[in-house]
């Protein structure tokens, strides 16, 4: 090492400083690059919205894609779509990330002799494929998910035209059992449609409808409507959840019956028997049942399900007494080998309660728009692959290598196929084994149409030019067919895929339909149905589980990652699981008793062993889980993808977390659907332990009244809340605002409000606005759609697992989860994890925590540079360019909503081309700067500009925040507190329920929370 003396050192420092100054003086040259031909509809700086359709799951929610300068930057729900009515779940919103994904294939890829994928030309790739398809003949097979209605028709036509072996539809979470049950019970081959909006009793038989059901956004909204305490002061519909695990849906129920997994059918028939005994059900239905219900008395059901006989009886009486009850059949995680029979018993219960025809709609069989997925057909295809019959396999819209169990032998079978083609736009496990990758457009770039159910035909339209050399799959297939010439070409339709989609809407005014987003009609419904006589022969038994272990393995779809397709989208990794609050990782849920038995604590890596394999992941002991169950989320354990795996981008690397599918058998149910609940497991410790990336380590709010609850009886005395405008705008400068009182109705009334206040007054007297929110905890399900919306709207950086472990997550809104009012206990040190969940406990409170824009904000006086201050409209401004990063404000914020940029995340965490999806209206923050929720001030500014241009005031509802916009249940309402008629004021004015978080600190928050309503167990 060279020796420096002091003089030498100072000289060097001087040179360094001088150079620094010199570089600082010359600004880098910035360019203005206008269009060559500016599209007529594009004005730089003004967003355009295009109607499209979400392709992240099979629910088919409508989208409004916000584009700026021709680039999609945010997805919002299409208010015209009857499915999501303007809201959009987190998974749907994160779908925009596929387009700007840094891992994307930028053109066709071909595997070379060395076994690596290398770029190819489209012409060569197509010639290659054409030759293979020609020589493959009947050895050509297509395997994939639902590509949309028109695409599906075209693929079938292509398969026929080229004389291919066949097409197998593969959707790991297809509701085949439900469709089979409908065939069995009603002789109608269609998937029943559930409408919960007018129900008064909803019983979910292990169906996690709010997070991973058939249509989560729709069902969340419907349930919230049915349980709306603003208008229904008796609490509205009651909601009962039956299932072994405290899922997000269970936490939102009024009563949770923790039945043994797979016994839902037995319970449903026992309930049906009570319902029949109380005189419900038509005579013909009863005679069709024959002696089916005889074996299902309450006591037998109690011993089979592990529930108390009283609970079952009470639920049965409630079902018999309810006006419009509805029951939902088990969801993905609980489809056992008896799934069809179980779903059939739930449909029988619905029929006897009179729900079929009203809450449960049966579309005519012929109208079913989706191709039927069949797990048995997939298994048959794997057999053909193994026997060498498959020469060419075309894979689209699915990642079978990840989502099929290894015990199906798919990996070995794939190795026997000489030519595997993938149409995936993002690399996945399957593309890592493909010989040819012909990347499809992402949904933001493609044409298409989706028919999630009869009556709805939703259009997918491109919102910008494809970013890379990608092509629509159907166009590729058509080109291949045409290149084959002769009869093949003659059998194929003319024109492009776009023209074919348009032709499918020939019965409508295309331009109007396109602007609307599709054709949104009521589903056609078959007339009154009666039970088929076959139901008498129904065999209901406990599920068949393989293996010897003591625990039933429940593999459940992750609320955010779904079947694993969301794992490579950074937001879905960073936003924690709504129940366990773990991000970026896998975990094994066991009950506390189980954990004690095997001697494992939080974070101890335990092994889950079944006859089919073994996985190891950190243990998470939970109170809200049956002792005979071990639960692992599906979705992690990818080896490919920079966010999905550790280190793997386009080629496999180390997996992130574990893939629970690896230990499942290749089981099917009796209706050829996939059986997920199919094996027992053994647990053992490994002696290792890992840190779990919790975003919230405890669920005890220590009676600080962060998330409150009131019994439903407290509402009866108070009048209903009206959200309808009472005509005209109120006087913005005065008006009698009732002072808010926090005391008297809460769980623990010992906190006295020191100074009652009126949040509307905390702005300049001359200001027309004091922005505020009403957040309804009774409506919040904890789904985290708002969190994803906030991330995307506000350019919030993704920090990654390592930084999450250091507590440096950047989310501006988070959902805090608390169990009950909590207890005041002061435990020395910091326990790794506190779980107060209990089996059957439904007093779980999900609290969306945003910046409260306090009238007397503790962050403001401590800022030495006035980077945070109170503006005229009552907003707590955060001026990034003033901030010098002392972090005093964050230390002084009691709500802990301020986030600090420890690094320059903009360089590291938005690799190209992710930066193209940034919101140009929001500054990207640099290192050393504090940031926080601003009530989407850029959206307020846009609303103000529009109103000012039109010389009028901002109308209520015209400006809303990203979180409120996305909320499926309308739990967050944003508005002007100085407008007496605004929804935020009207809904917030609900004395038995309204309170302010931590109001005893006199922070004068502008967010009014409405306490969760505890409705208690169901009564007849």
């Amino acid at each position, binding site marked *: 090492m060279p020796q420096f003396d002091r003089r030498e050192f100072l000289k060097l420092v001087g040179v360094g400083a001088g150079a620094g100054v010199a570089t600082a003086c010359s600004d880098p040259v910035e360019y203005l690059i206008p269009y060559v031909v500016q599209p007529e509809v594009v*004005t730089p700086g003004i967003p355009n919205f295009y109607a499209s359709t979400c392709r992240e799951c099979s629910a088919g929610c409508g989208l409004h894609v916000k584009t700026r300068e021709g680039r999609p930057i945010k997805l919002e729900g299409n208010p015209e779509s009857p499915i999501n009515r303007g809201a959009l779940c987190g998974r749907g919103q994160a779908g925009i990330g596929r387009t700007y994904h840094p891992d994307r294939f930028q053109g066709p890829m071909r595997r070379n002799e060395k076994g690596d994928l290398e770029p190819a030309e489209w012409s060569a790739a197509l010639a290659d494929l054409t030759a293979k398809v020609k020589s493959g003949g009947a050895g050509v097979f297509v395997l994939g998910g639902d590509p949309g209605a028109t695409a599906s028709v075209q693929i079938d036509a292509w398969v026929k035209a080229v004389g291919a072996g066949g097409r197998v539809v593969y959707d790991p979470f297809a509701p085949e059992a439900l469709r089979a049950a409908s065939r069995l019970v009603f002789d109608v081959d269609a998937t029943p449609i559930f409408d919960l909006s007018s129900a008064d009793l909803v019983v979910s038989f292990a169906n996690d409808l709010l997070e991973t059901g058939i249509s989560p956004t729709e069902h969340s909204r419907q349930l919230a409507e049915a349980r709306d305490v603003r208008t229904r002061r008796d609490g509205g519909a009651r909601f009962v959840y039956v299932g072994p695990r405290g899922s997000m849906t269970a936490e939102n129920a009024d009563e949770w019956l923790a039945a043994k997994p797979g016994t839902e059918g037995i319970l449903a028939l026992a309930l049906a028997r009570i319902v029949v005994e109380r005189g419900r059900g038509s005579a013909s239905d009863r005679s069709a049942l024959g002696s089916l219900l005889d074996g299902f008395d309450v006591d037998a059901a109690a011993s089979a399900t592990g529930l108390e006989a009283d609970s079952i009886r009470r639920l049965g009486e409630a079902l018999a007494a309810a006006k419009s009850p509805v029951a939902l059949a088990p969801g993905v995680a609980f489809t056992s080998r008896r799934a069809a029979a179980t779903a059939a018993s739930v449909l029988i219960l619905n029929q006897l309660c009179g729900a079929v025809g009203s809450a449960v709609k049966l579309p005519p069989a012929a109208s079913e728009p989706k191709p039927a997925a069949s797990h048995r057909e997939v298994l048959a295809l794997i057999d053909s692959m193994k026997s060498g019959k498959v020469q060419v396999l075309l894979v689209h819209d699915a990642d079978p290598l990840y989502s099929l169990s290894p015990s199906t032998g798919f990996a070995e079978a794939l190795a026997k196929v000489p030519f595997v083609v993938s149409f995936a736009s993002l690399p996945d496990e399957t593309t890592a084994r493909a010989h040819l990758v012909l990347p499809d457009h992402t949904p933001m770039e493609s044409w298409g149409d989706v028919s999630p159910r009869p009556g709805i035909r939703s259009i997918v339209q491109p919102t910008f030019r494809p970013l890379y050399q990608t092509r629509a799959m159907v166009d590729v297939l058509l080109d291949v067919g045409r290149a084959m010439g002769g009869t093949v070409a003659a059998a194929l339709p003319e024109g492009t895929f776009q023209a074919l989609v348009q032709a499918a809407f020939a019965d409508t005014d295309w331009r109007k339909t*396109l602007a609307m987003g599709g054709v949104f009609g009521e589903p056609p419904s078959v007339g009154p149905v009666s039970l088929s006589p076959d139901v008498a022969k129904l065999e209901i038994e406990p599920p068949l589980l393989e293996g010897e272990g003591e625990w039933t393995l429940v593999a459940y779809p992750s609320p955010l990652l779904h079947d694993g397709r969301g794992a490579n989208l950074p937001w879905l990794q960073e936003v924690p699981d709504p129940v366990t609050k773990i991000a970026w990782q896998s975990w094994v849920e066991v009950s506390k008793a189980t954990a004690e038995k095997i001697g494992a604590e939080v974070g101890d890596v335990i092994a889950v062993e079944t006859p089919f394999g073994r996985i190891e992941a950190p243990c998470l002991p939970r109170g809200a889980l049956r002792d005979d169950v071990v639960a692992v989320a599906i979705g992690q354990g990818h080896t490919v993808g920079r966010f999905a795996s550790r280190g793997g981008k386009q080629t496999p690397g180390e997996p992130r977390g574990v893939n629970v599918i690896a230990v499942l058998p290749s089981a099917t149910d009796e209706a050829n659907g996939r059986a997920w609940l199919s094996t027992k497991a053994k647990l053992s410790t490994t002696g290792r332990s890992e840190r779990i990336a919790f975003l919230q380590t405890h669920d005890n709010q220590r009676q600080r009244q962060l998330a409150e609850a009131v019994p439903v009886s407290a509402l009866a005395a108070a009048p209903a809340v009206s959200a309808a405008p009472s005509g005209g705008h109120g006087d913005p400068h005065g008006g009698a605002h009732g002072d808010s009182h926090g005391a008297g109705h809460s769980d623990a009334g010992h906190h006295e409000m020191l100074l009652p206040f009126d949040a509307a007054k905390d702005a300049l007297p001359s200001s027309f606005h004091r922005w505020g929110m009403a957040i309804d905890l009774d409506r919040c399900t904890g789904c985290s759609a708002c969190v994803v919306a906030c991330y995307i709207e506000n350019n919030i950086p993704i920090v990654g697992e390592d930084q999450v472990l250091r507590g440096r997550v950047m989310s501006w809104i988070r959902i805090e989860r608390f169990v009950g009012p909590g207890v005041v206990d002061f435990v020395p040190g910091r326990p790794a994890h506190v779980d107060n969940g209990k089996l059957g406990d439904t007093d779980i409170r999900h609290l969306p925590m945003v910046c409260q824009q306090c009238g007397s904000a503790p962050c403001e006086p401590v800022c030495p540079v006035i980077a945070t201050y109170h503006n005229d409209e009552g907003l707590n401004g955060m001026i990034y360019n003033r901030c010098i990063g002392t972090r005093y404000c964050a230390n002084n914020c009691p709500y802990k909503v301020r986030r600090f940029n420890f690094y320059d995340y903009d360089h590291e965490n938005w690799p190209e081309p992710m930066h193209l999806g940034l919101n140009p209206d929001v500054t990207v923050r640099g290192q050393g700067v504090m940031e926080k929720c601003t009530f989407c001030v850029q959206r307020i500014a846009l609303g103000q*500009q529009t109103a000012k241009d039109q010389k009028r005031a901002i109308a209520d509802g015209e400006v809303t925040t990203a979180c409120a916009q996305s909320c499926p249940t309308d739990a967050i309402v944003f508005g002007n507190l100085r407008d007496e008629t605004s929804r935020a004021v009207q809904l917030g004015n609900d004395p038995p329920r309204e309170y302010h978080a931590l109001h005893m600190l006199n922070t004068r928050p502008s967010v009014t929370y409405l306490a969760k309503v505890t409705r208690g167990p169901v009564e007849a």
Partner: protein
Amino acid sequence: MSWRPLDLARPASAAFRVAPLLVALAMVALPQWALAQSSEAAKEAQRLAWDPDLPGPDQPIPFSHALHAGTYKIECLYCHSGTDRSRVAGVPSVQNCMGCHSQFGQDLEGVQILKKYWDEQKPIEWIQIHRLPEHVKFRHNRHVAAGLDCQTCHGPVQEMHKVHLVPERVWVNGMPAQKLEMGWCIHCHEAKKASIDCLTCHY
């Protein structure tokens, strides 16, 4: 905000349907104009636009604002359309320039360079002169609506062959502030009683 479907087969608007007709008419009726030699003034303006002795950077095309906005008195918003509607000032597309220059000034070097961009369908990379940092959300439309002249911030562009930042200094609360610095904005905002809330421009 505009709510429109993206329709690639969209029929052209009335203006677009009429435009080719007008161009064709002009070509028939005014062949002398179309083929006329450019004036000496235009040639001189073009020379000055690349004059190394004038302040400001050389742009990819020797475009003279003094000629277009000064001599020919073309409205600023004619080329910079959208400035009155959007936060962002519109910069004319190559097509916009070619709208006139397919007819005029084809003997000029600058127009030939422009034509090359058009033929290659390449965008022109203009060097930005008036530049605000990313954390400033300046809104052009508001300032146009308030009746401010473009020259207030951009200087006498109609006299500049080569656009450059004209230094200007004001005193705010006893502190000097240079043009396009925050104090300079505040100076005007205070004088005109416009908002000086931080959140008006910074978010």
